[in-house]
């Protein structure tokens, strides 16, 4: 059997491991094993590639991998769970830049080989050299896509990282003529892409293409606000996969294409889920704000004389007599680092025979599923973490709902068909429970910038305090009550 057949069969096994691994993620029970299968698939693909004919400079390769593995391991082991969105954003970026570099490296070799062949030298064999023998249309188009998508992914991810880390402003950066600037940069990028395809020998065009793509990545992400980051991270996740697939077309390599398109599909699905959970189109997230001025209704009218303030002691009394309690955590819980007292209070209530569950909105947190990870870290059993549709069916049987650090996702205004920025967004129907306790520092608006009638509802009690302090007080008061 020829060596290429062996390595392609090994790639097939790796692809099966990737797919089976992702399938394992359909349940928390099988998820750890699924992830390990993916890792084994990757190891197999790497080893087989190293054993291919014509691979030289092993020392150099091992050195590079060792360096990368070390950095990656340090990141992975040191990162706090609250900072997971930044880390995933950063990793997306590394994947993207790797695609830009590989495509550039292969293009350069192809161009050099082309001029060598023209000079009468023998064409090389094996690996990159052979692929590089004759840059056909597939090769050049794929190279242009690798450079473009990879560069957008890398610089978009860098800006997303900066925003999540607080280095770059969380607010959307808007300026006059913004859309025109973006379209112009896009046109310039496409122009360079076409030049790469038409005249691959001019390698500088490839680097101009990557530079223009980088600028495009920056412009696209910098205009997006902190609350929309779950969508951006999911989209960049998809791009990093598509960039890898494009590099697969450059090298005519099956495993890159398969793995890349799996990830591309995954990111797109998550992006769609997030957009649906915000009732917005992807175009609106990316280019939104065109003439969309949020009018702030007079807060006084909604809140005047209707807001009831409460104390930890009073809430503890109500909880004591409850049979079913639901927590609705938002990103504010993570910011206040209130997860531990939430878990303590949950345990205390369960000891008294109270049923406790968590209602989690799809866009809670800074990336898809973020809130679940933060609660799982606190050892809160995953069968208590309920999706929006599941928990919404239960609010009418719920005695007390505690809203902690969430705002727009529990705003009943969203049910109205039009008239507000969140109209039509699916929300958690917390107002249907007997009593709602909202823990919040003030009546301030959420990301959508609009007042929330829930705070003035008849069955709502406001506990004005920092999330962590309020929860600590609540735990103490519950013990005493």
């Amino acid at each position: 059997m020829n060596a290429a057949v062996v390595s392609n069969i090994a790639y097939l096994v790796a692809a099966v491991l990737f797919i089976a691994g992702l399938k394992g993620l359909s349940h928390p029970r099988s998820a750890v094993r699924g992830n390990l299968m993916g890792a084994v698939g990757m190891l197999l693909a790497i080893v087989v590639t190293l054993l291919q004919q014509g691979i030289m400079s092993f020392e150099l390769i091992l050195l590079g991998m060792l360096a990368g593995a070390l950095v990656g391991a340090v990141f992975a082991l040191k990162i706090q769970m609250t900072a997971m969105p930044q880390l995933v954003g950063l990793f997306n970026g590394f994947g993207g830049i790797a695609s830009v570099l590989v495509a550039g490296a292969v293009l350069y070799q192809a161009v050099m080989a082309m001029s060598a062949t023209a000079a009468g030298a023998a064409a090389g064999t094996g690996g990159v050299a052979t692929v590089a023998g004759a840059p056909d249309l597939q090769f050049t188009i794929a190279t242009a896509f690798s450079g473009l998508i990879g560069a957008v992914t890398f610089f978009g991810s860098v800006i997303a990282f900066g925003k999540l880390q607080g280095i770059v402003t969380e607010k959307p950066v808007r300026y006059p003529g913004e859309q025109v600037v973006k379209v112009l940069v896009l046109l310039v990028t496409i122009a360079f892409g076409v030049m790469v395809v038409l005249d691959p020998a001019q390698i500088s065009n490839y680097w101009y293409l990557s530079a223009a793509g980088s600028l495009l990545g920056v412009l696209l992400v910098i205009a997006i606000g902190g609350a929309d980051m779950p969508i951006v991270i999911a989209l960049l996740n998809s791009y990093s996969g598509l960039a890898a697939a494009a590099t697969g077309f450059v090298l005519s390599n099956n495993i890159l294409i398969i793995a890349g398109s799996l990830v591309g599909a995954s990111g797109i699905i998550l992006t769609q889920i997030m957009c649906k959970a915000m009732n917005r189109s992807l175009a609106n997230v990316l280019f939104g704000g065109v003439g969309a001025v949020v009018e702030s209704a007079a807060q006084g009218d909604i809140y005047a004389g209707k807001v009831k303030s409460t104390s930890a002691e009073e809430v503890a009394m109500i909880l004591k007599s409850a049979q079913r309690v639901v927590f609705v955590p938002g990103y504010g819980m993570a910011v206040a680092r209130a997860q531990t007292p939430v878990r303590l209070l949950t345990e205390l209530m369960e000891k008294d025979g109270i049923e406790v569950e968590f209602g989690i909105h799809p866009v809670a947190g800074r990336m898809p599923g973020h809130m679940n990870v933060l609660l799982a870290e606190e050892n809160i059993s995953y069968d208590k973490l309920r999706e929006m549709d599941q928990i919404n069916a239960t609010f009418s049987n719920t005695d007390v709902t505690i809203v902690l650090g969430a705002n727009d996702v529990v705003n009943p205004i969203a049910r109205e068909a039009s008239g507000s920025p969140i109209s039509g967004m699916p929300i958690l129907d917390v107002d249907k429970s007997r009593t709602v306790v909202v823990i919040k520092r003030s009546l301030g608006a959420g990301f959508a910038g609009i007042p929330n009638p829930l705070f003035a509802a008849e069955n709502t009690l406001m506990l004005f305090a920092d999330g962590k302090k309020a929860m600590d007080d609540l735990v103490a008061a519950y013990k005493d009550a």
Partner: protein
Amino acid sequence: MAESLGFVNILTIFVLAIFVGNEVITKVPPILHTPLMSGSNAISGITVIGAILAVGTGRETLTVVLGMAALVCATINVVGGFLVTHRMLRKFKKRGDA
């Protein structure tokens, strides 16, 4: 060699893989969406294969240099991605689990 496959064949693989991805990913529950992202992110580090080929078969210095940079970045992506996903998934426990 892989390049004998021809464009249509690898395009077929690409399109079918997207459909497989679609089927598999839609079954992942929202509770696991963060590990899904970090785990699939690690898989997108498959570019590491391209980087190995570039370094291992590169005849031009620039090809090897670019390949090395790609190799380091992609390995960070792969190792960091799988490791952090493992760390996260181990935290998901049901009451009564060990």
